[in-house]
């Protein structure tokens, strides 16, 4: 149906974004809507040996309710619990969070920090893309209009550190001024920030500095590193300067207790 619509169709998942101010918003869309909610196979998530596999319609609440997710991948549950409130979590989907491509997507940050891979399906077959290579710019992504996100694979590598921190006007409902997901595993450090760039992004300069144990004695050192990783703007929710400063401070305060090379150096005079 999607290819018959000539790539002009809008897919309905949890509709927590699409239906805001509906039906006025209908005029912005392309006119053809395809409801996915009847495709039962897209809803369930499952645990495989190597990965947690989220379906295209798996909701935030599905994962919040999964005790195993809370144990094995707490960063997903932490991020999911900051999305809207229960009424949004019961409807909003992880795949929708990805495809909506908001720079502020908390769920995307949590998935990306765990090296998630998206599976895109079309009549031509299945394509898999790492989430950290999925976005090309503001609302630009490697998702063709004839493709559907059918699943998201989250590797079950164990992380010695994983957490998500949101800074917003309020913990519930408010969209993040900044969000940051932090993880460390055998693959190294992962720092993923949202609301500070055209798309949710890895902060690779900071990750490299942490992997190389570069001393970061003060928050200013993080501000400098983040300068090459993020490009925040002023908008209705916050300012570029606030975002840059707060992201650096949040990271500093989270990392200092975990990394002896972050914070005032012992033995320094």
């Amino acid at each position, binding site marked *: 149906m999607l290819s018959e619509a000539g790539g002009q169709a809008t897919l*309905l998942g949890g*509709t*927590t974004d699409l*239906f*805001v*101010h*509906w*039906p006025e918003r*209908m005029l912005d869309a392309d006119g053809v*809507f395809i*409801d996915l*909610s*009847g495709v039962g196979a897209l809803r369930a998530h499952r645990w495989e040996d190597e990965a947690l596999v989220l379906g295209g319609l798996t909701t935030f*609440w599905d994962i*919040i309710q999964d005790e195993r997710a*809370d144990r094995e991948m707490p960063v997903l549950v932490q991020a999911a*619990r900051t999305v*809207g*409130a*229960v*009424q*949004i979590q*019961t*409807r909003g989907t992880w795949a929708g969070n990805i495809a909506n491509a908001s720079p502020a997507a908390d769920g995307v940050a949590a998935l990306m920090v765990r090296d998630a891979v998206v599976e895109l399906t079309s009549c031509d077959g299945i394509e898999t893309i790492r989430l950290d290579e999925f976005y090309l710019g503001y609302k630009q992504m490697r998702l063709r209009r004839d493709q559907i996100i059918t699943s998201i694979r989250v590797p079950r590598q164990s992380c010695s550190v994983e957490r998500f921190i949101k800074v917003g006007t309020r*913990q*519930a*409902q408010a969209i993040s001024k900044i969000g940051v997901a932090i993880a460390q595993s055998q693959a190294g450090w992962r720092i993923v920030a949202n609301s500070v760039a055209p798309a949710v992004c890895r902060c690779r300069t900071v990750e490299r500095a942490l992997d190389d144990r570069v001393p970061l004695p003060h928050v200013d050192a993080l501000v400098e590193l983040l300068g090459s990783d993020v490009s925040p703007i002023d908008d209705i929710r916050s300012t570029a300067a606030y975002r840059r400063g707060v992201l650096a401070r949040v990271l500093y305060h989270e990392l200092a207790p975990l990394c002896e090379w972050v914070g005032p150096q012992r033995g320094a005079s």
Partner: protein
Amino acid sequence: MDECGLVTIELTLNGGCVRLEVDPGERLLDTLRDRLGLKGTKEGCGEGECGACTVLMDGVPVNSCLVPIVQARGKRIETIESVDRAQLSALLDSGATQCGACTPGVVMSAAWVMQHPELLHTHGLRELMAGNLCRCTGYDGIIGGLAAAIEAGLARKSEGEG
């Protein structure tokens, strides 16, 4: 879909079966209020923020302003009209309602929490109720009333078991 663009939908509403011919893009909120005359569910913001339009869909709270009616097909919907008045006494006693605009949504979220006390193993009441804004800011009354109702429910349950 017929030539007028309408679709036939069946759903279970407050325990009864309902069959409708509707525009598939209609909001569940509008179907309830305008088509079925169930005016208890209120529209506040129309963007999923205030929770005044909260109903239960297959047993979990959703904002009915964000649900296309076509997605309610075959679902179980419960609205404020289904709530047993006796369940409301603790909320009334605690002054949980002031101007009343948020109350139908608050009651639906509260009813869900009361049905699922196990949620309190992982969540606090304030987080569970965070999707219902009260512009009178009467949150302490709402949370206090809900806590009292849950306690009374648990007490009744243990009496029943004992």
